[in-house]
């Protein structure tokens, strides 16, 4: 069993990259804007169906579909926030939670109605391409997802620190009223944030589908862990989401190996509780953003 530690840990790192990808979008929405987005998992599910159908109906490879879907989901997120979430929450933050919950119920049931709960998955030729790293066999799509998670986290960090919109988002996160007073268009920036967060999900979906599946309930497999990752990494920190996701992946894999898969989840929450006890602000405490 000891001989398995390195391959298991490396594979955990690959799984962790997926957690990080899902958490990157959430850390922006939840961590920066403090919107508890219950629809995060449902939007991930929607993105997975989008990639699936682009491949099945149009023959588009998931990696080729990524730029198109990222744009489409940015637009979707923007419109959702501007048109539905902000309209129906009447400016109250507590209402936002309920509106996103309603959205998730509607999206989930619509998916169930349209596509039934039967599991769909893609069988791509490269799904079984394995790369040997330090004696561990790693699936090529997982390695690609790992690399992409690093790149996306870096891009988000650059966007947040180097662009005007990034500065506006940070300004709102720190002091909403003040930002408004100096002329920041709060509604636009909120929608922008939501759009970027949703676009991250589209990217995550494209990277996830070669090794995963899609059902109307698939979002729930990731959403709890995404919230955990965001809090663990530090609210609003992209580096935190990345490192937090990778850490949880490795912890889950190793505790699965030593405690059995049924108890594997314990490792995740043990780390989480320890973090809340000794470093409640999270690994990176969002200084990366602010």
């Amino acid at each position: 069993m000891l001989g398995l530690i390195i391959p298991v840990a490396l594979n955990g790192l690959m799984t962790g990259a997926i957690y990080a990808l899902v958490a990157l979008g959430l850390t922006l929405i939840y961590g920066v804007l403090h919107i508890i987005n219950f629809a995060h998992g449902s939007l991930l599910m929607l993105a997975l169906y989008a990639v699936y159908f682009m491949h099945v109906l149009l023959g588009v490879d998931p990696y080729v579909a990524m730029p198109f879907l990222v744009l489409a989901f940015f637009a979707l997120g923007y419109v959702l926030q501007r048109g539905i979430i902000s309209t129906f929450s009447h400016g109250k933050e507590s209402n936002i939670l309920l509106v996103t919950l309603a959205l998730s119920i509607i999206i989930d049931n619509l998916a169930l109605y349209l596509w039934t709960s039967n599991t769909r998955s893609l069988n791509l030729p490269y799904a079984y391409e394995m790369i040997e790293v330090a004696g561990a066999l790693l699936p090529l799509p997982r390695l690609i997802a790992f690399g992409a998670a690093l790149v996306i986290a870096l891009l988000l960090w650059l966007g947040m620190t180097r662009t005007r919109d990034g500065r506006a988002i940070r300004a709102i996160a720190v002091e909403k009223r003040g930002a408004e007073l100096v002329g920041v268009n709060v509604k636009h920036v909120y929608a922008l944030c939501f759009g970027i967060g949703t676009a991250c999900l589209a990217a995550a979906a494209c990277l996830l589908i070669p090794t995963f599946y899609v059902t109307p309930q698939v979002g729930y497999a990731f959403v709890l862990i995404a919230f955990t990752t965001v809090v663990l990494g530090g609210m609003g920190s992209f580096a935190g989401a990345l490192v937090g996701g990778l850490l949880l992946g490795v912890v889950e894999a190793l505790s699965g190996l030593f405690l059995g898969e049924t108890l594997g989840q314990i490792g995740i929450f043990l780390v989480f509780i320890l973090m809340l006890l000794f470093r409640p602000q999270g690994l990176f405490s969002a200084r990366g953003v602010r």
Partner: protein
Amino acid sequence: MTQNSSDLTRVSSRGISRRRLLALGGSGLGAPGLARAQPAPVRIGAVGPLTGTLTYNGTQAQAGIRIAADIINAAGGIKSLDGARLEVVYADAESRPDVGAAQIDKLAGAGVSCIVGAQSSAITLATTQAAARFGIPHVVDIGTAPQLLQRGLSNVFRFTPGSGESVTLGVENLFSLNRAAGNPVKRIAIVHEDGPFGSGMAKTLAARLPGVGLEIVETISHPTPQRDFTTIALRLREARPDLIMPTQYINEFILFARALRQQRLSIRGIYSIFGGGASNPRFAREHKEAAQHIIDTNHWYDPRKPMSQALAQRCAAIGIDVSYDVMVAFGSMQVIADALEQAGSREREAVMATLARATFSDTIMPYGPIRFEKGQNSGARVVNTQIRDGVIELIYPAEFATATPVFPMPPRV
């Protein structure tokens, strides 16, 4: 309307109960002239999970029931009831036992003669109990839990085999398959989800496999959902089993089958009993490589029967897979139609008495003569299927087989 008038004479000599009056009213007493020209349809209640987590099973079964009713009606309905047509009343159990039970009240109010459903043991336990209160016969299409028939309810008729019989037969078939191939399999690994379904199966297998000379070298349980199966695949590689017996739901099954292939395990077979994915046509089609040669023990129809082929054609026409839910729901409707035919009555008591006593003719299932003994169809049995190039073939028993088993499976690259 001979049946109605004889009912009437019999009833009037004893006084008419309210329930009987209602039943008679529904069947044409209220409008005898109209009824003579076109007998009122016989209502059948179909309860199942049309929404919620079990939607796939529920809607597939619904399709099977609808197609069966269409075919029976097109062939002239129930002849002993003057060609009365079957009219199915659908009720959604929302994947919840309590909702399923509540829906039975509605079906009883709609005047159904018989109920069919409900694709899951948990829901069926509730619906059969509720139907018993109204004295409605309940034909169970799928519900493998032994408790279904241990409650002394006389209205429960299970068309398919229960879990105990199925595991016994599954293990026997594995033994025969292995012996016929020269016993290439000795070491078994069990991988199961940690709910009642998987844990129960693992426990039963642990008790029975040593009896047929098979050694269990590893048992691994995992939660649902489980997002990655690499660790499990690596542990299995160390345990070096000849055969893996998975008991999981479809999503985990897909990831597991993939992980086994990705981590290049050399095994001689994957053999499941009520496996989540191995009898799912979509999985077989979408994962030709990972699914190749996986054997399952499950409900399956006899694909060579003309009626089976008619069902497959109808399913293709409406664009749904011929899954086992469709098959057993269709078969259950065939039995109900036969019971109505033999009873010559649409009354619940008469239908129930006929189901309890009579022997039923051919259905699409590869079953022996269908008799319900203490509520269990004694002719029912599970069969073995194997995925071959994206298609699910029946491989065992030989008399129904559409393909010869490939066992042990050839080494995977």
